[in-house]
């Protein structure tokens, strides 16, 4: 019973943290240690909080254009749908993708139980080569000018590699630059449609969620390949429209979080901030109990977000978009300053400039992810 209460408490905390724009659960993990829980209780609490956090973090990413390191790419298709008046549908398809990934992750667990300890060492050896292929793929599938964005992002990535500056880096590339473009172009937000208006069928949604689950099962255990990069790769393999891409990205985010807990328990490897924190208090826990917490907290987080979606989008609808964007910009700068300091602001300025440059050159913003990929290749080779 006490386990269940702790699980629910963690879920509530995670939900609240996810709704705060620019707040990543990793920034809050050290405070959890202050709770007077036993190690196993803290373990379950963090898992529930992390799962709920992933679901609720779709709101600021889509409605305000404020991403965290995982939802960086959600901002672009999400923002497009918000401008078209489909904010509610954008949030709902993201939530739906996340939920189905939770469902599909169960059969994958049974595969991991046997295969992961055997496959992981082999996968580790080919990581840098996989990253080089991804980088080449990104360059060859875009305009020649993309090399400028790739080069500048890589340099910025190298300069910030030794510091924990992912927030300003990715917020600048994908969040702040998007908001500035919207304001400068005087983007008109259509009136928001408050009903679920999606072209996606359940079969289509399930297929894309399964693709997220499958790709994450390959790349989720590899260092330096974030969920955003997996989304990028999938978009090169198949053309996705805004809704499908949102499902893919949100699904990948959820799958990454789930697999990071599986990786910790099965091969004792950390693949997320939460898993790093949990590794310090990790005792041999039942994988099925952990799966139970993942399922319960995800399902309840989905339901709460499901019912919160309309009031939050309505709240957003009442606000002046230009004012809201300015407020978001101010908030982004304040959060970055609070969490990353003055150096973080310089990085934010640089990454925003690169994001704006990629827009003016007409190349894909995804090229900015070279800031993570290139330094990792250099370190691993």
């Amino acid at each position, binding site marked *: *019973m*006490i*386990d*269940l209460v702790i*699980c629910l408490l963690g879920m509530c905390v995670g939900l609240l943290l996810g709704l705060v724009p620019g707040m990543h659960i990793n920034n809050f993990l050290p405070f959890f240690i202050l709770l007077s829980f*036993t190690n*196993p*209780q803290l373990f379950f609490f963090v898992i529930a909080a992390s799962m709920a956090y992933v679901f609720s973090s779709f709101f600021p990413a889509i409605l305000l254009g404020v991403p965290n390191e995982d939802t960086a790419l959600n901002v672009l298709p999400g923002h497009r749908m918000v401008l078209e008046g489909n904010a509610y549908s954008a949030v*709902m398809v993201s*939530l*739906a993708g996340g*939920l*189905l990934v*939770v*469902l599909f992750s169960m059969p994958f667990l049974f595969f991991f139980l046997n295969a992961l300890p055997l496959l992981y060492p082999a996968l580790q050896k080919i990581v840098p080569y996989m990253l080089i292929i991804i980088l080449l793929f990104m360059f060859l599938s875009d305009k020649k000018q993309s090399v400028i964005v790739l080069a500048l992002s890589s340099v910025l990535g190298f300069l910030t590699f030794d510091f924990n500056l992912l927030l300003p880096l990715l917020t600048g590339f994908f969040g702040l630059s998007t908001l500035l473009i919207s304001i400068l172009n005087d983007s008109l937000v259509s009136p928001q449609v408050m009903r*679920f208006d*999606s072209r*996606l*069928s*359940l079969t*289509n*949604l399930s297929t894309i969620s399964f693709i997220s689950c499958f790709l994450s099962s390959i790349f989720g255990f590899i260092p330096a390949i974030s969920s955003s990069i997996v989304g990028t790769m999938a978009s090169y393999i198949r053309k996705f429209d805004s809704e499908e891409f949102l499902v893919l990205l949100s699904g990948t985010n959820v799958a990454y979080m789930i697999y990071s807990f599986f990786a910790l328990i099965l091969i004792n490897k950390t693949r997320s901030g939460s898993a790093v924190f949990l590794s310090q208090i990790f*005792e041999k*826990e*039942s994988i*099925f*109990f952990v*799966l*139970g*917490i*993942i*399922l*319960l*907290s*995800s*399902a*309840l987080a*989905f*339901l709460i977000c*499901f019912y919160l979606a309309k009031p939050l989008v309505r709240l957003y609808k009442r606000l002046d978009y230009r004012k809201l964007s300015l407020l978001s910009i101010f908030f982004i700068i304040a959060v970055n300053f609070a969490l990353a300091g003055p150096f973080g602001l310089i990085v934010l300025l640089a990454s925003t400039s690169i994001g704006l440059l990629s827009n003016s050159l007409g190349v894909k913003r995804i090229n900015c992810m070279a800031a993570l990929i290139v330094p990792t290749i250099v370190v691993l080779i």
Partner: protein
Amino acid sequence: MDLATLRKISFILAIFGLLLIYGFSPSQSQVKKSISEIRRDCSGPVAIEGTVGNISYSSNGNVIVELLQNRSKILLLLKDSFVEEGSNLSVFGKASKFSNQCWIFPERVELR
């Protein structure tokens, strides 16, 4: 896509999650055992009742309590000294070997 279907899926997942939590909960698996049974494999979650014997203190301030049951004894590591010799305890926690001895690392200790 129908939102009602998604709601149903989330309810099913929540119920399945609850069942897994109930079935595999560490507190559910803390089966009551005798000291001699615990000492045999000295691992995993356990629940035990016994009487406090000698109490000593480790160099880092932890309290080492001998828990007695019939003629067997096992060591219990506590953070605070809230028990005294002769107290009857119910202990829920994990058994583990350390320095060639079987220890119980408690999650919950109740005075009986």
